[in-house]
């Protein structure tokens, strides 16, 4: 099989205008629009070949690249020494050796009407993450099907993800028509099959095009081999399909504030990229979440003030009034604001090797706001191949599930389907800083709008004043057998003797009652600490000095409890006992069991302990007796 390297249509041979009238050409090309699209398909569907073909037919391949392509095709090509277009879009060295692409690559080509950015992502199951990433910025998706194979499991998976990411413009490119004798019957068979599935996932429409990427049929010019196909060619459709920015102009104005521009005392501008709608000087706006209103004084740009600006543009707005507005706020049309809430239902796509831990605080970035958020256990996980809902307690790499999420403060948002700019978010691990998930908001949970804190007449100050003490949470952390409970007990005795009101929450007694439904997996450990933290906070609100003795192995959860408490009320005590010492003591015989394999997920043995980085108090139980340690902690508390 030989690739036909002759461009099919003279339209994409270097424009005559270039040679004859470059100024006219430049003028024409300044008015080009831009479309971003994603191609989905497996290695065998001919995806790379199709992209290579588009680059080639739009004259994006230069002679030197072609020479190196010919050389590479002979060395590592899959076309028996003929030109292998797939090599044009291949990337990192390690991947080339494996013969597969394993990441998102962006390719560029242009015609007289449009510039195109293609997100090229692999179709392998384990790379859901990459496809979701590529789809998040796409206006359109090209889903490739091998005409010989028809609709496969992976076709369904790709279609589901494309639909999940809200892409409305879907092309079903039925490829390799040359290998099924350009059969009209086969084409319609596949289209019918796909229609059923599209309906099932709620995809409203799609455009099927019969093509051959290798031969060039219906890519640029209509194929003489398929006179029965009357629809647009692939490229013609790509040139005409609507782009998202234009669609977003029809909605109410939204602009997340990126940066406040204050070059001097006379100027205060709010810089951002308009996510939806249009804006003009004189328009009434509202700043969320505060709800303060003003009017737009000017739309400032380097090229002079504008009469109007539209979705997609990056601008700087000034207001008629001096109102508070900072990064993370959203400027909206005054009479059509978006919602503000702190609890949502959302779909999450998990993107990290480390699985999701329900209850653990993550950073959530949405628009330009970054807040702390925690996720509940999934309501269900979605099997992307069968679309079945599965029961799940957590989400692993590439898993997709529906969860509730709550943020530490109310944020302006919109449903993802209405406005991806204010409905799409990422979750970031607070320790590793990795992007661990992508999320799409469905709606705010009603209770987040309707439940308000009961304003208490006797507040925490009153409780504390009555007891003549300042409330504290003294948090003991350390390995099993390090001496946490022993020291905490001594501390409480001393506090009692001093007339202080205290209470000791202990790992063992809490696990027999409040937390008896929890085991020792990472997810359960997180939930264990979350509950203890909440109980400790309530007790501190009641004015008590709360002592807690839990292994609490993870930094994130200890930090979560710290952040529940007012500044200075959380005292972290690191009971520092080397593993060997704790194991030698083995008061409860647990280490022996763990070493024997009879006890799973035991901290220090087969589950990690993350020592505190900045504990208020550290006691070394090797050089210090329990009595001395308790004395030191009490004197610290009394001096606060």
């Amino acid at each position: 099989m030989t690739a036909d390297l002759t461009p099919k249509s003279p339209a994409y041979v270097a424009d005559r205008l270039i040679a004859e009238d470059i100024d006219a050409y430049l003028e024409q090309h300044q008015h080009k629009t831009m479309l971003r699209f994603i191609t989905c398909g497996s290695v065998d569907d001919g995806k790379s070949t199709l992209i290579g073909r588009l680059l080639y037919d739009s004259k994006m391949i230069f002679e030197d690249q072609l020479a190196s392509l010919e050389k590479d095709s002979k060395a590592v090509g899959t076309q028996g020494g003929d030109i292998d277009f797939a090599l044009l879009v291949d990337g990192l060295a390690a991947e080339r050796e494996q013969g597969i692409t394993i990441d998102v690559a962006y390719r560029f080509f242009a015609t007289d009407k449009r510039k195109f950015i293609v997100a090229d992502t692999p179709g392998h199951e384990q790379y859901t993450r990459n496809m979701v990433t590529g789809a998040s910025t796409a206006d359109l998706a090209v889903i490739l099907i091998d005409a010989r194979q028809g609709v496969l499991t992976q076709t369904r998976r790709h279609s589901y993800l494309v639909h999940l990411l809200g892409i409305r413009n879907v092309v079903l490119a039925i490829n390799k028509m040359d290998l099924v004798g350009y059969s009209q019957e086969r084409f319609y068979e596949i289209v019918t099959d796909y229609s059923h599935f599209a309906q099932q996932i709620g995809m409203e429409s799609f455009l099927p095009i019969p093509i051959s990427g290798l031969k060039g049929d219906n890519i640029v010019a209509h194929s003489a081999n398929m006179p029965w196909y009357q629809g647009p060619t692939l490229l013609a459709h790509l040139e005409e399909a609507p782009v998202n920015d234009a669609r977003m102009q029809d909605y109410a104005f939204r602009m997340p504030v990126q940066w406040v521009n204050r070059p001097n005392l006379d100027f205060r501008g709010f810089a951002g990229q308009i996510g939806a709608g249009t804006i003009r000087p004189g328009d009434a706006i509202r700043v969320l979440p505060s709800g303060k209103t003003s009017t737009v004084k000017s739309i400032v740009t380097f090229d002079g003030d504008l009469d109007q600006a539209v979705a997609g543009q990056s601008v700087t707005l000034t207001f008629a009034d001096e109102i508070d507005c900072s990064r993370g706020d959203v400027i909206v049309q005054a009479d059509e604001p978006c919602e503000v809430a702190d609890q949502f239902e959302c779909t999450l796509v998990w993107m990290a090797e480390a699985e999701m831990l329900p209850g653990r605080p993550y950073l959530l970035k949405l628009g330009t706001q970054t807040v702390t958020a925690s996720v509940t256990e999934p309501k269900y996980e979605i099997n992307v191949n069968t679309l079945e809902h599965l029961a799940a307690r957590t989400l692993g790499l590439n898993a997709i599930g529906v969860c509730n999420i709550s943020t530490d403060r109310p944020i302006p948002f919109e449903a993802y389907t209405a406005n991806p700019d204010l409905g799409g978010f990422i979750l970031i691990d607070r320790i590793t800083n990795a992007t661990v998930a992508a999320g799409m908001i469905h709606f705010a949970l009603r209770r987040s709008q309707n439940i308000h804190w009961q304003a208490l007449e006797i507040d925490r100050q009153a409780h504390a004043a009555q007891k003549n003490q300042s409330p504290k949470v003294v948090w003991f952390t350390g390995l099993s057998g390090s001496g946490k409970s022993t020291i905490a007990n001594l501390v409480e005795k001393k506090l009692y003797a001093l007339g202080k009101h205290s209470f000791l929450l202990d790992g063992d007694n809490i696990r027999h009652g409040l937390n008896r439904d929890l085991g020792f997996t990472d997810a359960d450990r997180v939930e264990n600490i979350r509950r203890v933290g909440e109980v400790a906070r309530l007790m501190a609100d009641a004015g008590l000095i709360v002592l807690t003795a839990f292994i609490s192995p993870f930094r994130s959860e200890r930090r979560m409890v710290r952040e529940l408490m007012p500044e200075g009320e959380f005292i972290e005590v690191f009971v520092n006992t080397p593993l060997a010492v704790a194991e030698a003591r083995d008061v409860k015989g647990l280490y022996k069991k763990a070493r024997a394999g009879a006890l799973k997920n035991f901290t220090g043995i087969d589950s990690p302990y993350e020592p505190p980085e900045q504990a208020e108090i550290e006691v070394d139980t090797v050089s210090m007796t329990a009595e001395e340690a308790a004395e030191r902690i009490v004197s610290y508390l009394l001096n606060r």
Partner: protein
Amino acid sequence: MTFDERPPVSQQTLTHLQRLEAESIHILREVVANADNPVMLYSVGKDSACMLHLAKKAFYPAPPPFPLLHVDTTWKFRAMYELRDKAAHDAGMELIIHQNPEALEQGINPFDHGSLHTDMWKTDGLKQALTKYNFDVAFGGARRDEEKSRAKERVFSFRSANHRWDPKNQRPELWKLYNTRKAKGESIRVFPLSNWTELDIWQYIHLEGIEIVPLYFSQPRPVVERGGLLLMVDDDRFPLAPGEVPQMRSIRFRTLGCYPLTGAVESTAATLPEVIQEMLLTTTSERQGRAIDHDQAASMEKKKQEGYF
């Protein structure tokens, strides 16, 4: 006056350059809002010129709130040094020039030291400067269309504390949500021009009237031919073979770097439209003029892992 009486805002589909500009501005602002100590790497080429222009737009009416850093090799074209100083001054920005002191002391040069020249002046020099000034984010003008391995480069590219790039450990970039968080000692290279192509850059320079180094335009210049490359004799440090006399030829450059390493093309394109015309009609890709790329297909990727852009 009530604003309701005004005609509705007309629908306007943004052009590709408007969308690219808006995206780049968004990226520049995200960095400034999050970084402790950002810097813009300024190489004086056409891509740097575009990036600097976009920075002026992003922060107007304030000047860009970060300095420019030129990692100098002492072997750039003279015309580049002239524009460098002028551009920084016009933008109202501080210009930091760093020359690797070891390379300076050892007299490292492209004629005698081969790839060591790039390694020491550029790769090591860049790392030294970032460490010396404690910059946590550096803007670079690289584009994804330049070379195959760059097609997968993120807009925000994370580097370990020793400035290494790990292709397996980069963050997914969804929508326009960039995760800008990093641990102490880590740094980020940010490429605001990721989605621009060479033609986009030229069109934008044309449309916006951005000043670029005159070397991009053709004029008679003294050249010698070495290993298939036309090299310009820009000063008297160029070692001529016995009897070798530079010839005056009408040439220009498609890409700029160290003058002894940068091949010229014979051309009559003396204006911007003519340059674009030539670029569109030409049949070899932009990077061919750079001596650094000819080794092997994955060479850029290796350089990148070591810390070169």
